[in-house]
């Protein structure tokens, strides 16, 4: 077991190293941040001064070396734009992203699971078609479009909800819906297919043959087993919601990590983009590592695999 954990840990660290290299060079391919920090028409001296200030006049390998050395000390650098440590910015925004992700997740599960069960139980009938339509729209409508339609309807025409920002319960409803719909659709589809699989299994047929009521068969026997892949997916989706709600957070001016990433990309703020991607990557790597370890604890065959 110890060897397995060590090996997985090694893979995780390697993944993070590759991620750091990739994002470091990727952001630099996008262009020169200095050009976004000055008006068009600025002199070459202006631009050279910005390069020097941010260390962008050093060779690329030297920049990467400095970046990694800082990273190992837990220093993600200073934002070019905000002139503030990246970690401070990140942790200022993280609670907002967590809150939005949790509410959006609660919505997506509260809607996705019941509709998925209903669609599976009423397969081929009205509720199944309605569920499929719900999933189709949720998966295909861009979240910026959903966001703007919500703002138009609930803020401009009805005047019920604030259009943007954070601060109260009302502020979170529209962004949570816009973010959660896509995931609700994904959860609905997985619940439906998982339920259909379980409902067709031998033990469910036996339960029915025993004369158990339909609600008991679905609730007690089928649902619990069908839920396992949904919960696994929800866990991964939660990490994604925290880190990739870029569009929703931007449309609703929600002060989360996603909007910080958008700002970082918009202003070629390399340290911010690098920091957020590495933090997000670390979350995913840690979650995967924990899942692997838990699987290995449960199933000895996994840890014995070479």
């Amino acid at each position: 077991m110890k060897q397995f954990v060590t090996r997985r840990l090694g893979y995780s660290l390697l993944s993070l190293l590759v991620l750091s290299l990739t994002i470091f060079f990727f952001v630099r391919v996008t262009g020169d941040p200095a050009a976004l920090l000055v008006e068009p028409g600025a002199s070459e001296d202006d631009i050279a001064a910005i390069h020097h200030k941010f260390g962008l006049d050093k060779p690329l390998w030297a920049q990467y070396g400095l970046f990694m050395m800082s990273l190992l000390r837990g220093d993600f650098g200073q934002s070019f734009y905000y002139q503030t440590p990246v970690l401070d910015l990140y942790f200022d925004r993280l609670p907002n992203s967590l809150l939005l992700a949790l509410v959006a997740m609660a919505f997506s599960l509260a809607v996705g699971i019941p509709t998925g069960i209903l669609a599976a139980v009423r397969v081929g009938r009205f509720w199944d078609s309605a569920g499929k339509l719900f999933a189709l729209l949720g998966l295909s409508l861009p979240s910026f479009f959903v966001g703007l339609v919500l703002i138009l309807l609930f803020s401009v025409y009805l005047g019920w909800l604030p259009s943007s920002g954070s601060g109260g319960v009302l502020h979170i409803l529209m962004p949570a819906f816009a973010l959660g719909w896509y995931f609700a659709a994904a959860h609905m589809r997985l619940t439906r297919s998982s339920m259909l699989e379980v409902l067709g299994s031998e033990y469910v047929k036996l339960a029915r043959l025993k004369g158990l009521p339909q609600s008991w068969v679905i609730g007690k026997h089928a649902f619990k087993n069908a839920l396992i892949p949904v919960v696994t997916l929800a866990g991964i989706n939660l990490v994604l919601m925290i880190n990739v709600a870029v569009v929703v957070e931007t449309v609703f001016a929600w002060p989360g990590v996603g909007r910080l990433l958008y700002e970082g990309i918009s202003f070629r703020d390399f340290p911010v983009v690098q920091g957020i991607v590495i933090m997000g990557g670390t979350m995913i790597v840690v979650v995967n590592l924990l899942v692997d370890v838990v699987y290995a604890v449960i199933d000895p065959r996994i840890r014995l695999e070479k």
Partner: protein
Amino acid sequence: MQRDVTSAPGRNGLIPTRRELLALAALGMAAGVRPAVAAASGQLTYAVHISLAPTWFDPAETPSLVTPYMIYYALHDAVLKPMPGELMAHSLAESWSATEDGMTYSFVLRDGVTFHNGEKVTAEDVKFSFERYHGAAKGPLHDRVASVETPDARHVTFRLKNPWPDFLTFYAATTGAGWVVPKKYVEKVGDDGFKKAPIGAGPYKFVSFTPGVELVLEAYEGYWRKVPSVKRLVLKVIPEEATRLAALKHGEVDIAYSIRGELAAELRQTPGLTLKPVVIQSPFWLYFPEQWDAKSPWHDVRVRQAARLALDLKTINQALTAGYSRIHGSLIPDNFEFFWKPPEPVYDPEKAKQLLATAGYPDGFDAGFYNCDSSYANLAEATNNYLGAVGINAKLRPLERVSFNQQFMDKKLKNIIQAGSGSFGNAATRFETFVVKGGAYVYGNYPDLDAMFEQQAVELDHGKRAAILTKMQEILYERVIGTHLWQLAFINGVGPRVGESNFDRIAGFPYTAPYEDLTLKST
């Protein structure tokens, strides 16, 4: 012997004459005694289009951008600064003078002006702020100043190494060097501490800042010019344009910056909301980088004239910025010192075709690429269509802004370039960057213009300098080195609670300064 350099004539009304200066000095003295007005009250909320950066709280770091001045005008004050009707209004300085030889500039500070922490603004603070400045124009400014002397708390004297007619342009209008920060406080808290809790001498005090989210300011009731009418300003960052408009319609914000195109039309039709366009100091023009290549069609001035005549600028302006951008024919912003207004642009496609025919292109020609910053691809598309209609056939090549600027500067763009600039300065600084030899965006040069540029750079007589720069602009127009498209309008929305929004009061300035003049209808 000292003389009042502002007495020179012919300054487009932007720089005061001697008589005006005396009047202004008198006004400045009078303004030192603050009128008794009611205390500030109410809150005004902005939807800001861009994330506010803490570097914008510190004038020492002023980049080559107009955006930080959105904050400076609230938090800080300057020795001289652009104000309504004046490019260099007396602010912390109640008067200034310069010696005949243009080597010494002296300022007298107002008595009793205080920073937000109650400390007096002194000559030492002015000197400290100048020396501390390390923004975009640090080189040209610091390299030319030999010393800054502070004989007493209210007098500051700048001694130059050589005569430099543009000293005040740079010190008072182009850079953050003249914006004054409290020396003792900055030394106590350090640069980073200052950005976290800035203290200035402006009409509004810093309350809180959440990066990327909002900035909260509160009226400084000890402000020398007047007590601000509005107690609290909240600048909320809302990056999405449609959301800004929704917030304005819903009454969550009172002023929304940057509402363009169809949304601007919608704003105009919404009862209770007011559209406030501001023509900023950002002209756009077509630049022909191959005019110096004898093999290129663009070498023939008739082809360039044809391009100018081919464009229906009024229709383009109407379609894209609801007619609010300004068409004046020049590559220089019309609010700049030494601006010369060319003849009114004319749309005459038939004459354009004739000119092309006489130049040897009766069937038009393949003009290669029309390069533009993709943010302004709508302007490029319209312009390119008009060029195509007379036979100048170019393929549109929109480039992402950074890439466009880089390629423009690296002289890698060919055929046609849609240029633009919002940088500060005057006519001379625009020539330096875009027209004469050595300029960052110059693909070729004309020796006579280069010589005239050198001549004006050391000319201390304002009238003679203006004459040279006027002549240079006439040549720029005659040779069609570039052809004007528009001077861009920055379109904003104002809600029903706002009394005086201040838009378009300071020439070319896109935001709502002076903040102390803002009013709410209910206050």
